[in-house]
């Protein structure tokens, strides 16, 4: 019980728990699940944007996009490494992903339909991710917090690039402006859903807050995102697709309309437009690569024996 008190003391003092420290099993499990889902999200998130690398309409945008998707693979690697410090096994986590036993962010179950989607994903999806993730830079588990610092830095770079693409497109042709508006219309609500269910329905929030894994509730973060995005949308010259969106001087926040929670749960449960496709893509890449991983392992083992 000394161990548990020590754990609680460290957490309460806003210090970091490190891999060798004692931690409650629930804390470990919660973290492994959260970090794994986060890693999976980076990996699955490579697909909707990666789909546009081959078609990016300028070489500069092609390079930016390729570098971004590459960063996502890198983020996945840091995060799997962080999960491994908690005793998780990367192969096991990958198996959970490709067999559909572990989730990833539902936002990636929507299709990217035009090149403007690349910009809007940068602006809104990375923007929402940053709102979620900045507080995680101060999360109580050290390796996770350190991974998040690096990730957040890159994500905010991606977000600026996305927003800059949209600004450029809005200065372009009328067809381009239409494309941007169409993409904003399609991504706004799914972006709001990225913060998860409303607080009253979020089963794990309270415990995660107590353990200082999370530092804010879903609804707090969602509000922060809305407050941040509305002026950005105005500057961009697009209307967010929510007639109820309005400044509430009393609250000091923007009010916004009701999220379609039925859709939210449908997509979470696997029935979004692209769930099956995303998991199948990852599974195929994983299976197609099995012989290569086996060869690498056999070669390494052979070299070790020879040494």
């Amino acid at each position: 019980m000394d161990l548990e008190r020590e754990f609680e003391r460290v957490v309460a003092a806003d210090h970091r728990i490190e891999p060798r420290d004692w931690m409650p099993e629930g804390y470990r499990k919660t973290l492994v699940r959260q970090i794994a889902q986060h890693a999976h999200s980076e990996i699955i998130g490579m697909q909707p944007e990666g789909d546009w690398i081959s078609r990016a309409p300028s070489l500069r945008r092609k390079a930016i996009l390729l570098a971004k998707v590459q960063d996502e693979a890198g983020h996945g690697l840091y995060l799997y490494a962080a999960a491994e410090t908690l005793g998780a096994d990367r192969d096991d986590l990958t198996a959970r992903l490709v067999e559909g036993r572990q989730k990833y962010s539902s936002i990636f179950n929507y299709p990217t339909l035009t090149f403007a989607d690349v910009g809007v994903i940068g602006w809104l999806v990375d923007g929402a991710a940053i709102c979620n993730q900045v507080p995680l830079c101060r999360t109580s588990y050290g390796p996770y917090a350190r991974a998040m610092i690096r990730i957040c830095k890159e994500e905010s770079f991606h977000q600026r690039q996305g927003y800059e693409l949209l600004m450029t497109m809005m200065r372009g042709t009328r067809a381009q402006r239409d494309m941007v508006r169409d993409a904003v219309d399609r991504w706004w609500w799914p972006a709001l859903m990225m913060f998860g269910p409303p607080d009253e329905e979020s089963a794990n929030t309270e415990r995660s807050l107590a353990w200082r894994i999370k530092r804010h509730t879903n609804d707090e973060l969602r509000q922060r995102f809305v407050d941040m995005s509305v002026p950005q949308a105005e500057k961009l010259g697009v209307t967010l697709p929510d007639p109820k969106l309005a400044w509430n001087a009393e609250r000091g926040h923007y009010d916004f309309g009701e999220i379609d929670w039925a859709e939210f749960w449908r997509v979470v449960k696997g029935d979004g437009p692209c769930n099956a496709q995303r998991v199948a893509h990852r599974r195929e890449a994983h299976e197609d690569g099995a012989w290569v991983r086996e060869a690498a392992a056999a070669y390494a083992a052979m070299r070790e024996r020879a040494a």
Partner: protein
Amino acid sequence: RDDLVAYCLMLGDDALVYSQRLAEWCSRAPELEEDVALANIALDLLGQARLLLTRAGEVEGAGRDEDALAYLRDERGFRNVRLVEIDCGPGEGGDFAATIARLLVFSAWRLALFQRLTESVDPVLAAVAAKGVKELAYHRDHAAQWTLRLAGGTAYSRERVIAGLARVWPYVDELFTPHPVETRLAAAVDPATLRSEVDGVLDTVFDAAGLERPDVEQIAPVAGKAGRDGVHTEAMGYLLAEMQHVARSMPGALW
């Protein structure tokens, strides 16, 4: 001056088209580390392509920038060697082994070429080459390591790497066949002079991996013309359709 434009396009198109092919692996590599590595190589080459196409446009002086050259040229205007445009996977046209085989051949060849090019009388080409040499040395090393792993891994991976080399080998002679532009232009490197050096590098890798140089026929040019003359394989049209479609669909757009 036309020759210098053409030469910049040749080297630029090699990098651009190959980068396009390599990027197809994005989110499909056998492991995440390799996803990062292949994207890195694709990015390096894309960077080389941008410098070279920009330079081509400047020397040409007709107001074409890198994007005009990449997106608004027709297939017959692309001057890349055919090796870079063929489908080596992921997917039906190849696999990871064919991809590595092409990377080995291409980067050994281009590294030798760029090493020579660092001494070009054209200062821009020399500078592009100097930057590229470091990148290409990494690419070649990466490919060589994978060649060793696949050749010495499992029976299956060994079979695959042999098949992969056979897939790309028919396009090797073209790499060393000088185009008149390469012969005439003082700033250019005559690729025929690179053959023994590149063969030596490849043979070293093959020896270490216990592989033989593939014994397959070379793909003929069409009436003496091949990639450097804009005479490509049938794979090229599809590659360009995908690459150029958005850009061509929105004339006057800003990106």
